[in-house]
């Protein structure tokens, strides 16, 4: 039977606990949000002793299900002041699943300043002193830890930003070649771990018993149907859109529709878009050769493989991975059209354990404030260095877009609930704007990725300018909460939206695993329960409907080329998840 591992950082003790009945059919986001709701006082200080970090692999993580190595991390966010769930693709999730860890709950905080690491294996759970890694980059720490614990393990950790309890600190998981590159990035959960003085968790899968499956035959049948759908859909198949060009294939497309936020959301098109696009990354890999690679997987068993390894001028590794959001945040949003500079900044973010979206949002606001000019990549790198040096300026910047805007009196501050908006212009693509506004996580696109329909035409094309989208947004948000519970990567959505047998297989996999008899209706129902609970936490934490709004400037500043304005009424917004 899977267990819950409760870790008390106050006295460095652990306890294996039975899984309560109410948690049996939950995993991933469904479980982390449920435990946070049950155990964390919504009014606690996010960095105080009463906040907790809850980590859970998805329901099918650790099985042979395709693209299912997602780990979910939850807690109260120091960035938004509300509940936070952030997830990442990593072997860590699979190992945790195979070790039959239903969830890890990290609570309490030590009395002294010792930094801790935790090693979890099938035999035991041990603490180790991690002081030697404090104040150092993750590119320095990860190879040393893998050397010590073996390359078959997987790592979770926080960087300098987390140690300094900065609100842009994410939680860094290792990829399948053990790089510090896969992040549960959003919402500052790295700062919460920092407050608990926990630097790393190593998981070792040797001798792990594997995930329990109630009905093997049904599980296998579902797995096959879903895998077939992924292998045949033009977006997700080998050699398909995601595999060949990565997520950054969207740069040119969003630019074309005037929905690529540029220079801190001043415009919707960026002249240098082509140079920072997925096509440019692919060309760079071909031209420079060496270790450059598109079609890289973040964990073993991903059939989509949307990640990349970007080479430097000599063909050596510059960084893995530059995602669409990253190349936008550190590129178009800052007026920077140089992939090498974007790669350098991405590596700095990985090294310091920083969310690249929040970093790019912050840099855009810093440029707006006149600290440096738009397009000044050298200046941007210097500002990021300030964070690493923990200077007073670095402290401000490290606390994110909204903190920086406040300090410098910048009104054009693109955040919702204090969290930086991602790479889609809401004045032009209304459904994603509604998702940003009302989903419980703050400015977040993955919470309800309506871009799939509004721009890419998956599951039926909708008009981005159409304002009648409450139902579309609601359906995306609920379905996403279920996918995030299953442990599958959100990118299976393209295949299950278009191929009915893929969706069927997805549900059958879960039924096979749990012995349930869920239907398509249950997907929406369970997703809704997750979201309702998250919203209830936010309300109890003091976030009201007035926080479910986009920044005011979007109502009166038109964005070129379509001259779009944010014009969704409050009534419509309030109806989405009512």
């Amino acid at each position: 039977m899977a267990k819950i591992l409760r870790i008390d950082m106050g006295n460095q003790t652990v306890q294996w606990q039975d899984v309560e009945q109410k948690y049996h059919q939950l995993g991933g986001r469904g479980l982390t949000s449920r435990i946070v709701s049950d155990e964390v006082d919504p009014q606690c200080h996010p960095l105080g002793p009463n906040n907790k970090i809850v980590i859970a692999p998805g329901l099918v993580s650790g099985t042979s299900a395709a693209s299912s190595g997602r780990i979910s991390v939850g807690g109260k966010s120091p960035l938004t002041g509300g509940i936070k769930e952030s997830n990442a693709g990593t072997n860590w999730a699979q190992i945790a699943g195979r070790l039959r860890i239903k969830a890890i709950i990290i609570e309490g905080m030590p009395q002294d300043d010792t930094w801790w690491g935790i090693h979890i294996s099938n035999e035991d759970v041990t603490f180790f002193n991690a002081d030697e890694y404090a104040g150092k980059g993750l590119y320095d720490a990860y190879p040393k830890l893998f050397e010590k614990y073996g390359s078959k393990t997987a790592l979770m950790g926080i960087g300098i930003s987390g140690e300094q309890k900065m609100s842009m600190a994410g939680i860094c998981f290792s990829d399948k070649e053990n790089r510090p590159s896969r992040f549960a990035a959003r919402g500052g959960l790295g700062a919460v771990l920092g407050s608990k003085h926990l630097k790393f968790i190593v998981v070792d899968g040797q001798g792990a018993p594997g995930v329990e499956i109630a009905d093997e035959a049904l599980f296998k049948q579902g797995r096959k149907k879903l895998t077939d759908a992924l292998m045949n859909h033009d977006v997700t198949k080998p050699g398909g859109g995601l595999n060949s060009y990565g997520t950054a294939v969207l740069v040119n497309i969003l630019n074309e529709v005037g929905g690529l936020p540029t220079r801190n959301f001043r415009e919707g098109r960026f002249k240098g878009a082509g140079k920072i696009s997925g096509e440019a990354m692919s060309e760079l890999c071909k031209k420079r050769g060496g270790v450059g690679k598109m079609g890289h997987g973040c964990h073993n068993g991903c059939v989509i493989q949307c990640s990349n390894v970007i080479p430097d001028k000599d063909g050596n590794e510059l960084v893995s991975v530059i995602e669409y959001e990253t190349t936008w945040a550190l590129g178009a949003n800052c007026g920077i059209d140089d992939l090498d500079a974007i790669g350098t900044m991405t590596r700095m973010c990985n090294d310091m354990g920083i969310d690249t979206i929040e970093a790019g949002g912050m840099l855009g606001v810093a440029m707006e404030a006149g600290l440096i000019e738009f397009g000044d990549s050298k200046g941007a790198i210097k500002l990021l260095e300030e964070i690493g040096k923990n200077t007073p300026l670095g402290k401000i910047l490290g606390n994110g877009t909204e903190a920086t805007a406040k300090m410098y009196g910048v009104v054009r501050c693109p955040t919702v609930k204090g969290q930086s908006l991602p790479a889609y212009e809401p004045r032009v693509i209304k459904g994603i704007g509604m998702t940003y506004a009302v989903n419980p996580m703050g400015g977040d696109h993955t919470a309800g990725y309506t871009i799939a329909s509004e721009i890419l035409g998956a599951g039926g094309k909708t008009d981005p300018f159409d304002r009648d989208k409450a139902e579309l947004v609601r359906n995306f948000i609920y379905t996403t909460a279920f996918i995030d519970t299953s442990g599958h990567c959100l990118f299976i959505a393209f295949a299950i939206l278009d191929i009915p047998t893929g969706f069927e297989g997805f549900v059958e996999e879960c039924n096979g695993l749990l012995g349930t008899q869920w239907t398509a209706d249950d997907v929406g129902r369970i997703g809704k329960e997750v979201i309702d609970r998250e919203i209830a936490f936010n309300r109890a934490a003091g976030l009201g409907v007035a926080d479910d709004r986009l920044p005011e400037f979007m109502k009166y500043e038109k964005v070129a080329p379509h001259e779009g304005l944010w014009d969704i009424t409050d009534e419509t917004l309030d109806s989405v998840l009512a």
Partner: protein
Amino acid sequence: MKNIMIVFVKLFAGLKDLYPALAIGDAMAVDIPEKATVEQLARQMKIPSFKLVFVNGITQNSDTILSDKDEIAFVPPVGGG
């Protein structure tokens, strides 16, 4: 040459490989007959298939009739996030 108009065409993702000399994100000028549709343009350019087409930044379809100086972008099936 009254019956000919010029449109500007961009090709994204794998479609760009049809015209290797075209720089990423750049548009190429193409002469087409007046009142040509998106479909006719695609055929003339030997674009085998596409999932999306944008005309002046707005989603359109194969039947859309083009005008002089229109900017057209062809996109194969892609995804991301």
